[in-house]
C-alpha cells in the first residue's frame, strides 16, 4: 500500500475515533442520538451533550494526541534517542509548576483561564531555562548536553511542584494532582482553536525539517556533510516541538506515554523515514487519544479516570513488546 494511501486510511481512523468518542459517555446516546445532537434536531439535552460537551472534547483529544505524537517523534529524532518523549526536556514539569501554583492560589475556581495561562508561562520558562543551561556549556546545541539540561530542569521543577503541593489544602491538592495526571475535562472551543493553530503551524515547520531529521538521526557529522544546517535545524526543531508540547500540556495536563510509544508503533509497522513518520505519528496519536478518553469516561462512569492513567497502562505492555522486538534484532 502506498504511503499516501496509508495516511488517508489513518485520517479516516481519526474520524472514526472521534465518532466513537461522541457516541459513548456517562449518558447513553445511540448513534441516532449523536446524529440528532449534531444536526440540532430533537432532545435539547442530547444536543447540549453532543455539541457542547463531547464534540469539543473529542476534537481536542485528537489535537492533543496528534501534538504529543508529533512532538515525541521530533524529540526522538532531535535527541537521537528512541526513549525520548516530549516531557524529557522539562516542558511538562514547568507547565505543572505553573498549574499547581495557580490551583493552589485558588484561581482554578470559576474563572477558567488562569490555570492555562499560568501553565503556559511555566512551560515557556522551562524551555528558556533548558536552552540557557545547554548553551552555557557550549555554544552549539549538543545532544548530550541538551538531554542533561532537560534532566536538570525536570528535577528542579519536580522539586518546585513538591514544595507547592506541601502547602496546599486537601481540595486544591487533589485538583493539582489530577491536573498532573492529565485530563480533558475543561475542553472548550477556545482551547480547540488555539491548539489547532499551534499544531498546524508546528506541522508545517516540522514536516519541512523531516528530511534533515532522517539525516541527523543517522549521524550529525554525516548530516552536516550532506548540507544540513544541523545547529539551525536543532534549534528550530527544539523550539517548535517544545512549544507544541507546551500547548498540549496546557490543554490537557501531563498525559504520558503517547509521545513515546506512538512514534515507535509507527516505526515498527511502517519503517522510519520522517517524511512519512511525522504525519503518520500525528494521525495515529490523533486517533488514539479520543479512544483512550472514551475509555476514561466510560470505565468508571459517572466518575472519570484521569487520561494519563489509561495511556500509562496501555504504554507499559506496549513497551514490553518493543523491548523484545528490539533485542531480537542483530545488535548494531
Amino acid at each position, binding site marked *: 500500500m502506498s504511503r499516501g494511501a496509508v495516511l488517508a486510511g489513518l485520517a479516516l481512523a481519526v474520524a472514526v475515533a472521534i465518532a466513537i468518542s461522541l457516541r459513548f459517555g456517562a449518558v447513553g446516546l445511540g448513534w441516532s442520538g449523536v446524529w440528532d445532537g449534531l444536526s440540532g434536531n430533537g432532545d435539547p439535552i442530547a444536543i447540549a451533550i453532543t455539541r457542547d460537551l463531547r464534540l469539543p472534547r473529542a476534537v481536542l483529544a485528537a489535537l492533543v494526541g496528534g501534538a504529543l505524537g508529533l512532538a515525541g517523534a521530533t524529540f526522538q529524532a532531535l535527541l537521537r534517542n528512541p526513549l525520548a518523549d516530549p516531557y524529557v526536556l522539562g516542558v511538562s514539569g514547568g507547565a505543572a509548576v505553573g498549574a499547581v501554583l495557580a490551583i493552589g492560589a485558588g484561581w482554578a475556581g470559576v474563572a477558567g483561564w488562569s490555570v492555562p495561562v499560568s501553565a503556559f508561562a511555566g512551560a515557556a520558562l522551562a524551555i528558556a531555562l533548558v536552552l540557557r543551561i545547554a548553551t552555557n556549556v557550549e555554544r552549539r546545541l549538543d545532544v548530550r548536553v541538551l538531554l542533561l539540561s532537560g534532566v536538570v530542569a525536570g528535577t528542579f521543577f519536580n522539586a518546585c511542584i513538591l514544595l507547592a503541593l506541601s502547602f496546599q489544602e486537601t481540595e486544591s491538592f487533589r485538583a493539582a494532582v489530577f491536573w498532573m495526571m492529565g485530563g480533558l475535562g475543561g475542553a472548550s472551543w477556545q482551547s480547540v482553536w488555539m491548539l489547532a493553530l499551534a499544531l498546524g503551524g508546528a506541522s508545517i515547520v516540522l514536516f519541512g525539517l523531516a*528530511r534533515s531529521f532522517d539525516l541527523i538521526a543517522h549521524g550529525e557529522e554525516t548530516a*552536516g*556533510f*550532506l*548540507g544540513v544546517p544541523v545547529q539551525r535545524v536543532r534549534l528550530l526543531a527544539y523550539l517548535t516541538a517544545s512549544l507544541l508540547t507546551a500547548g498540549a500540556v496546557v490543554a490537557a495536563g501531563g498525559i504520558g506515554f503517547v509521545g513515546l510509544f506512538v512514534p515507535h508503533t509507527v516505526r515498527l509497522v511502517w519503517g522510519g523515514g520522517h517524511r512519512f513518520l511525522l504525519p503518520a505519528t500525528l494521525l495515529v496519536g490523533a486517533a488514539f487519544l479520543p479512544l483512550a478518553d472514551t475509555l476514561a469516561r466510560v470505565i468508571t462512569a459517572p466518575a472519570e479516570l484521569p487520561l494519563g492513567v489509561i495511556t500509562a497502562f496501555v504504554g507499559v505492555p506496549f513497551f514490553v513488546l518493543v523491548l523484545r522486538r528490539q533485542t531480537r534484532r542483530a545488535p548494531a
Partner: protein
Amino acid sequence: MKSRRDEVVWRTTGLGYRYPSADREAIDEATLGVGAGEIVALVGPNGSGKSTLIRLLVGAREPNRGQTELLGRPLSAWGALEIARRVGIMAQHEEPTFPVTVRELVAMGRYPHLGAWRRPGAADRRAIERSMQRCRVETLADRSFATLSGGERQRARLARALAQEPLALVLDEPTAALDIASEMAIWELLTAQAAKGRTVLLSTHNLNLAARYADRLILLHRGRVAAEGPPEAVLQERTLSDVYGWPVKVVAHPGPGPDQGAPQVVTLHPESAS
C-alpha cells in the same frame, strides 16, 4: 595512472587550526593543492592532523589562519548545500539511531539536490540505482544497514557519496577496519571513479596501497606537511622513520602486475638501526 592538473580543485595557503583548549596547533601552516581527477592520499601518524585537515577542506571547521579555495572560490563563500552538491564526504564513523535500509541510506545522498520539500524524481532514482550498482550493493538494497558486514557498510556509504553526483570524493580512513578483499574493493572503486574524472582525496594508514593507487601523497607530521608528491618521492626511509618514529625499509613491489616496482614500506624490528 592519470594525473591531470589542468584544473585545481582545492588550494590552501597557510592553513592553521587549533582546537579550543588544545595546547598545540592541530594544523600548522598547511599549504597544498589537489588537482582534478587526482587520487591524493593523506598519510601520517595518529594525531598528525589528517582528519582535521579534511574537515578544514570541506568547511566543517573554520581555520584560525589561512585560506582555502574550492574550485577557485574561497571556501567561506560556499554554502553547505553547495559544497554537498560538489563534494561527497565519507566520515570515519557513523552511528545510526534508527534502522535504515541500504536504499534509504543511499537515497540520503540526494538531499543536497532535493532540499527539504522536492520529491525525488526519475533523475534521483537513477542516480541512486547507478551508485548502488557501481559499488556493487544493489543486491543489498533492502537489507537493514545494521545487518551488513564492515566491507558492505563502507561500500554502501560510498554509494551514498556517489549518489550526490559530486565532482570530488573525500574519505576519512575508508578502509580502516576492513579485510583484504573489502579494502581492495574500495581502492578499485575509487580508482574507477578517478578514471571517470572524479577527484579523490582520502586519508589512510595503509602506506602500501596508497603507494600503488594514489597519484600523490601528502605526509603530515604534527600538523605540518612533512612531504608531498608522488609516492616514490614521499616514501623515503629517513622521512618515514622520523615521522612515524619506527624504523622502516622501503622495498620495491615484487609484482607480477602493473604494481611491480612501486615503493612498499616494510617495518623493521625495533632494535634495527637505520
